[in-house]
């Protein structure tokens, strides 16, 4: 189970491979992996977005992500989970977040992955500030499901 905050762009496939090869203690045991990848879009609420900055609460953000990862493992029969989230400056088309869940069966993997991203989006302390052509703007509401 891992939670990582990154200030640099990451490659989703390379991270999955790295985690599976080096960390996951379940080789040969997981039949199902479900991943959610959140990607920065180049528009929001009708405006062109050139980039964004993600602020977080050092200490609380990691604690919250670990807590929801623990909760997912309590609720569903999952073998392992990984959350990687960007902080700092991000450009359109870059990944913002990767949530991955490994399980023996697919229903648990889907349910746990969906739970993690919903909890992350509604409760984890992150704040987006968008760079528009005419200045910066704090995002007031998160995207609906």
């Amino acid at each position: 189970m891992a939670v990582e905050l990154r200030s640099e762009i990451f490659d989703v496939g390379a991270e999955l491979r790295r985690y599976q090869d080096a960390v996951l203690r379940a080789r040969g045991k997981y039949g199902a992996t479900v991943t959610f990848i959140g990607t920065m879009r180049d528009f929001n609420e009708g405006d062109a977005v050139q980039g964004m900055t993600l602020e977080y609460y050092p200490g609380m953000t990691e604690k919250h992500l670990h807590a929801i990862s623990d909760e997912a493992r309590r609720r569903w029969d999952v073998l392992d989970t990984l959350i990687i989230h960007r902080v700092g400056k991000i450009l359109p088309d870059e990944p913002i977040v990767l949530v991955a869940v490994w399980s023996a069966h697919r229903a648990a993997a889907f349910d746990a992955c969906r739970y993690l991203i919903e909890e992350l989006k509604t409760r984890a302390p992150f704040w987006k500030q968008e760079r528009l052509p005419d200045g910066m703007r704090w995002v007031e509401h998160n995207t609906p499901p």
Partner: protein
Amino acid sequence: MSITVKFFASLRERVGHSEAVVDAAGPLTARDIWARVAGTQPMPPNTLVAVNLEYTAVDRPVRDGDEVAFFPPVTGG
């Protein structure tokens, strides 16, 4: 007692600083702390409050040594 106070995102900009320390005699709630540190800025109704890295209610008493954080609705993911 001494309370560390943190502000994030749009609240940090609104209040004008990211961190402060309040030294005062208790009892105080998180709402009292806001009034002492944020000056004349009213607390937005959707403000979230965390004490020692856990979400809490704004009217909960705080204790000596606590870290109290104020921030707007979260927008990660």
